[in-house]
């Protein structure tokens, strides 16, 4: 059936629906990088972020969304990272943030 275009589309729900989201990739990521689970969301990584100060890139938000099974666009976002490593130096939880960037890119390349 050819879809009719009425001049608007149905907005996608903004809610993170954990009943629907497939958390398999997220579980895989956490299995490989268990320390990511210890993030307390202080935002230090994003505050120092070289890329985040030039563009919308928000590392904390992207990896949190990924952990919630929201993979759409995560790969493209992570590609904004310059891997400079400042975030790793300030993380109070000692998370291997650069490793997280590379891991998410590796796991979510096809999303």
């Amino acid at each position: 059936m050819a879809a009719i275009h009425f001049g608007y589309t149905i907005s996608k729900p903004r809610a993170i629906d954990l009943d629907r989201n497939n958390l398999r990739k997220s579980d895989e990521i956490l299995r490989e990088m268990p320390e990511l689970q210890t993030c307390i969301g202080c935002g230090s990584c994003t505050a120092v972020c070289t890329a985040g100060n030039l563009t919308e890139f928000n590392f904390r938000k992207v990896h949190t969304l990924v952990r919630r099974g929201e993979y759409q666009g995560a790969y493209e976002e992570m590609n904004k990272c310059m891997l400079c490593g400042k975030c790793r130096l300030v993380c109070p939880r000692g998370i291997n943030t650069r490793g997280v960037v590379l891991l998410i890119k590796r796991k979510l390349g096809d999303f």
Partner: protein
Amino acid sequence: MKRVIIIGGGPAGMQTALCLVRRGIEPVIVECENELGGKLRNWHVLFPTFTPASDVLTELRRKVRENRIGVHLSTSVETFTDRQATLSDGRVLTCDAVVVATGFTLFDARIKEEYGYGIYDKVITSADLERLFNEGRVVQAAGEHPRRIAFLHCVGSRDEKVCQQHCSRVCCVTGVKQAIEMRRLFPEADVFNFYMDIRMFGPGYEELYREAQQRYGIHFVRGRISEAAPTHDNRLQIKAEDTLTGRPLRMSVDLLVLLVGMRANDQNAAWAADNGLNQAPSGFLQPKDLFLGNVRSGVEGIFYAGTVTAPKTIGETVNEATAAADAVADYLTTKA
């Protein structure tokens, strides 16, 4: 008469001594500074009631004096066992039990270089601020008319990068208290508290937090400051992420106050090794258990009081000192 050596003459040490005297036991306080009082001496007012620290201190000191408790000032304990202590001046004191009330060490904020403490004049610690209040020199540090003052929570607490994983507990409410004090002193200034979590665990704390927001209009930003740099007009630019909006935030402030955490004394390790005491992963001495034995060390004749076991408030410390005296008395009675 039984004699008990109390290492440390802060609130915990003094209160333990007072309780022991009441039970007919002879306490001896060994204090490394030249007066009693510990870290409380430099404190201005206490949360959440803004009670002057000197009220508590004067009272404790007065009672210690009145009870003629033996005090060795400017003396530290080199080594000790449950039956004796070797002092820094070479004397050896014998005793029937030891209470360790050596408290904590303030985190050295210079280690968190990115905050600029010790580099920029506009960065001070919470302990500095208390001292400045006592000396009446806050205006000197903040300037006549500061427009903005920022507080940063969790400096040297909950931070693996400085090997301090524990929560120092008291900094959250100290930050709120000091923010209110600054706002009272500088009604024109905007005060911002940057926090990761606000932990208001004690009576009246949550109410104080609410008052800070409601009555004093203090801004709470959920994000950890990551960098501080000077601006051309001799202020300080700080950067953080405003995590609740998910965007980087930067602002210029006239004063940045770092709420420094409590860290374990370096000495704990050596003492623990000497006497078979347990050290918690945080470096603080680990009591026998946290419920029925929180002032006992697990080693006969050695007891703990106050923040030597974990960060605590003054109230908790004083209560624990009473409990420690009780446990010491129990021990000495059973032994006799």
